């Protein structure tokens, strides 16, 4: 999927994934025909609005949601469907998750010490009690918490601090892949940058790969290498970050971009909002698929649209 790299190592590879809830008449397809690869050490962002299926994909990767068809390969091993318990357990350590709501995702009746150690206990990732405590203290320092808060309870912390507890407990596991499900959207503006920088720091230090989920394009530009835009359970566009911001092709991506608030009074005055109307697509006869329209840049379109997009791109290039 990447234009120029043969030596890039693929950490996660999703092929033709579908997730369906319920069965029979009440069956609801949350996502279908999902295809993407995530390379080692990169941040791959999945951007879509509520109900787009982005969290469904995240949960499928973590093995929380059962998948109905397709495959999820992690470091060469198929990890969806029924797995031997031992394999499941060892993969669970390597894929960690950071949750959206730091108020709901921490056990209120446990101390920070237990919360951060929880994974360590499960995999016996320490030599002695002293070693464990050292690891926890070191991790707390890394995320900017004071080690003296070891025996505090989550609700005594502010939202930003809680989110850092959530990051600490995931990263102390030394995962290969971290799924960050809207990790900053419940946080205040002034705290968001803190958390993003922290995630970036860990990536640079430990080479962690991120699957970053967001509903807002403005946030992901800074952190992502590549972005996939998802709407109603289908990926409509995948491209490298700057490419997507400069040459968005799918009308839905364009609508999303135009909705990003412009923090400048002069420019904001005459900003135009593009509203996406799904009725512009005519897919009755000419069926759409994900087409590589430029190297590494994929768009969900049919033959007719592909021709149109290509001529538009040619016009811009001139």
């Amino acid at each position: 999927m990447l234009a120029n790299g043969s030596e890039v190592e693929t950490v996660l590879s999703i092929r033709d994934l579908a997730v369906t809830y319920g069965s029979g008449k009440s069956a609801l397809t949350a996502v279908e025909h999902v295809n993407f690869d995530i390379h080692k050490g990169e941040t791959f962002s999945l951007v879509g609005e509520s109900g787009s299926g982005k969290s469904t994909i995240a949960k499928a990767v973590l093995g929380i949601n059962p998948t109905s068809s397709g495959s999820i390969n992690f470091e060469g091993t198929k990890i969806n469907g029924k797995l031997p318990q031992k394999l499941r357990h060892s993969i669970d350590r390597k894929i960690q998750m950071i949750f959206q709501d730091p108020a709901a995702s921490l056990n209120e009746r446990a101390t920070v010490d237990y919360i951060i150690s929880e994974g360590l206990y499960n995999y016996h990732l320490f030599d002695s009690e002293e070693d464990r405590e050292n690891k926890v203290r070191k991790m707390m320092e890394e995320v900017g918490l004071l080690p003296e808060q070891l025996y505090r309870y989550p609700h005594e912390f502010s939202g930003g601090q809680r989110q850092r507890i959530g990051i600490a407990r995931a990263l102390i596991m030394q995962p290969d892949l971290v799924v960050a499900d809207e990790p900053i959207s419940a946080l205040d503006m002034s705290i968001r940058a803190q958390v993003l920088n922290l995630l970036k720091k860990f990536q640079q230090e430990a080479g962690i790969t991120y699957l970053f989920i967001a509903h807002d394009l403005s946030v992901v530009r800074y952190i992502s290498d590549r972005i996939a835009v998802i709407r109603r359970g289908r990926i409509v566009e995948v491209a490298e970050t700057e490419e997507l911001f400069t040459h968005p092709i799918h009308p839905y991506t364009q609508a999303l971009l135009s909705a990003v608030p412009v923090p400048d009074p002069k420019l904001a005055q005459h900003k135009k909002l593009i509203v996406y109307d799904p009725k512009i697509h005519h897919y009755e006869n000419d069926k759409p698929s994900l087409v590589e329209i430029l190297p590494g840049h994929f768009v969900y379109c049919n033959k007719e649209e592909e021709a149109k997009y290509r001529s538009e791109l040619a016009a811009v290039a001139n």
Partner: protein
Amino acid sequence: MADVPEESKSGNNMTDDQLTAADFQRVDLDSLATEKIDTPKYSYWGSVAKTFFSNKVTIAMLAILIVMLGMSFIQPLFSGYSLTDVGKINDLAARYQWPSAKYWFGTDADGKSLFDAIWAGARTSISIGVISTVIVTVIGVVVGAIWGVSKKIDRVMLEVYNVITNIPVLLIVIVMSYTLGNGFWNLVFAMTVTSWLGTAYSIRVYVMMYRDREYNTASRTLGTPTLRIVTRNILPYLTSVIVTQVSLSLPSFISYEVFLSFVGVGLSQNTPSLGRLINQYQTFMTSYPYLFWFPVIALALITISLYIVGQNLADASDPRTHM
């Protein structure tokens, strides 16, 4: 017109001109300084105690409860009361004495002190209540917790629950005491053999409510086994639910024993209990009313104080009341 009024001045005419140039020096940033937590340190059980003791009615009830319990478990050690003791049956002077300085609650047809009889009876009744409650709660919580997390067990247990809860408990107890015979432990067994299902069912409902919360999903992604999720993540949230269960079943088991003994099922003939006393003395309700009313009042004081103390403890153990 100014958007912000009088208070603002252009800086020069400060009222506090003791500020010197040194005050306007740059200070280095200590980025960890604001990470300190200023909220008061919170302790769950500390807050429970504080909320619990902040209610005056609760303290009064607790005092009554302590007196009743103390008397029931200490007084009989010294009184040497025996239900079957008929030593004074022919001592007419000792019989049917109205309450006096010597016999606080009077005496009965056998010349036995009612004061002694009540505490001996209360000891049995309370013991039955406490033991039954412990059994029901322990089994109920353990089974309910497993029931709530396993879909397979849920299917079986729901059937069991539906069948058994449709049989009246009274029927079960009567059948049991006829087959097993009367006696303290037989009664405890008969009363608890099915009633733990109720506790288990309500625990199951709560476990199911909590098990899919996000913090449990988080534990699962950290590889935490289900058993530990139940014990570390879910059961601690159910403290107030469990305390409520206990505070309801304690007085209800005591009343139940009283009722059973009153209708003549359950305890063996030589065991004193409040139910037996009330049964025995009900015929004197008009002639020697003290014989009937003192045991009833003792029973009421025990069950009401237990109930109120228990309910307030349950409220206090709900963190939402800790504000």
